[in-house]
């Protein structure tokens, strides 16, 4: 539907185009089953970043403060990218593995359903 406006072709600034992020793109990551982290976390990442860097540095840096993180084995995590199961290759850049601007990456690390809500 078009916006109800006084003139046709109403528009305003399209604020979050990828061009506005200085070579980065927005990516959201979410550790499923650990809602003490209230929501997915927003990141601005270069598409050239290898998945390994994302997982071992960025994600580990974000969640490392959690007492349970120490027992997490990310190599056994289940990943989902934009609603589809995802098997990222550690060495390849995320941009070459379907991670686009505003992609959502969800991952599960708990062997059984989480107990912590």
């Amino acid at each position, binding site marked *: *539907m*078009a*916006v*109800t*406006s*006084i003139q046709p072709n*109403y*528009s*305003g*600034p*399209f*604020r*979050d*185009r*990828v061009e*506005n*992020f*200085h070579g*980065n793109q*927005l990516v*959201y990551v*979410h550790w*499923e*089953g650990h*809602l*003490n*982290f*209230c*929501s*997915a*976390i*927003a*990141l*601005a990442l270069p598409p050239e970043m290898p998945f390994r860097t994302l997982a071992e540095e960025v994600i580990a*840096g*974000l969640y490392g*403060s*959690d*007492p349970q993180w120490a027992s997490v084995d990310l190599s056994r995590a289940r990943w989902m990218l*934009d*609603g589809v199961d995802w098997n990222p290759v550690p060495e390849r850049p995320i941009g070459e593995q379907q991670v*686009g*601007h*505003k*992609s*959502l990456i*969800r991952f599960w690390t708990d062997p059984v*359903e*989480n*107990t*912590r*809500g």
Partner: protein
Amino acid sequence: MNAKKLTLKQKYIQSTRGLDWEYSYHSKEEIFPYAEYEGIKIHDWDAWEDPFKLTMDSYWRFQAEKERKLYAVIDSVAQNSGQLGVTDARYFNAVKLFIQGVTPLEYQAHRHFAHLARHLPGAGLRVAAQMQSIDELRHAQTQIHTISHYNKFFDGMHDFAHMHDRLWYLSVPKSFFDDATSAGPFEFMTAISFAFEYVLTNLLFVPFMSGAAFNGDLATVTFGFSAQSDESRHMTLGLEAVRFMLEQDEANVPIVQRWLDKWFWRGYRLLSLVGMMMDYMLPKKIMSWAEAWEMYYEEAGGALFADLARYGIREPKYAGVAKAEKDHLTHQVWTVFYNYTHAAALHTWDIDDQHMDWLSEKYPNSFDRIYRPRYLAWRKQAAEGKRFYNNGLPQLCQVCQIPMAFTEPGDPSTVSFRVSEYAGDKFHTCSDGCKDIFDYEPEKYVQAWLPVHQIFQGNCGGATIPEVLDWYHLKEGVDNLDYAGSPEQAMWNNWMVGRRGSDNLDTKTAAK
């Protein structure tokens, strides 16, 4: 004499819409250019029935009397250090959220009701709108004047207007109101006068103000109740305006219904912040969010929508989701603020056992199962000197702009993610309610100034958290972080020692 004396109603009509005339040197469309583009058809403006019939003489008289009473209380609270009579300093975090989030909306309402007072073609409605316009200015000003005294002692209130234009959680109320004021006059009335003021505002003012009274904040309860006396007029305007649109033309019904669906949801999402204040920030509790929701939405709203059913209006589309969420909503919002207190101009804190027991009693279906374990784990971390703060920035909903913390209806362990594609980009929303709003007018919501994305674009003072906090005018270690260890806590404890002796101190937090 006075055999032909007019009744109140006749006199009122003569002193309001009787002042208007049929323009002949310019067309009605030239004088009221915004009246038609939303597609609302009004055939007979004279069919408008004025609910309350205040003329300016009575308005000045009543309002002057209200203001005299209110400022007497404000003066007295300031002169007698009224802040000392409040139950606990943590209470003032509700006041902070109020002046940062609500007061600027009152101001915007003032300006936009002036817009209606100029641009609505119906003279009766214009009169009601202009009284509301100055009422809203009153609310903004009386809030500023009341809180002015508290600002002298407590943090987080000192730059509320600057923060309102910038802070991540304040973009929630700001975008809500910007959405309404950027719409046409009829949508604004439906949004603010009806969906917000009639259906939802009781949830903001009544339990909160009653809570302020219960917690010893005389000044806030006085401005709050004094504002509510105006609010009752505004609510009635909202109800009658919607009824008027519905009665004027059948074609208006689906338009109004869509607005109700949208604005119910947007208002409800906004009020989740208020719910969090009620359940978490009032030291002495008055009623839970769930109870307030039942009393002011489910009971009163039920009667209302039963009344509107005759026009073919049904309950707002996602009211059922709101009902289903009521056991979780405030806990999830508190979780957001606890995560990001380092970037907020207010404090959060670990929940003590007594408070947990109250929450457990009020939320038997959810609290002990989900939220108590979470809070206990946080308390343990804090006791070990590792108070939890989330180091990342939250993903925000494109529409309501709240961090995407809400869970799937019926599944409190899974975050509700919704996504839309538009113009080659993805747009994430927190719920079906927000997704519907985006999908209907994507050209509007792609403009959203999302604070987190703006930080990444480099528009918020810099790339590091200290730079962003500076740009917010948020004083590190003063306005933000946990209440435990804050300057406010130290000040309060000092006062309480002087007042009651140290045995009444809150030793658990004071020890930290």
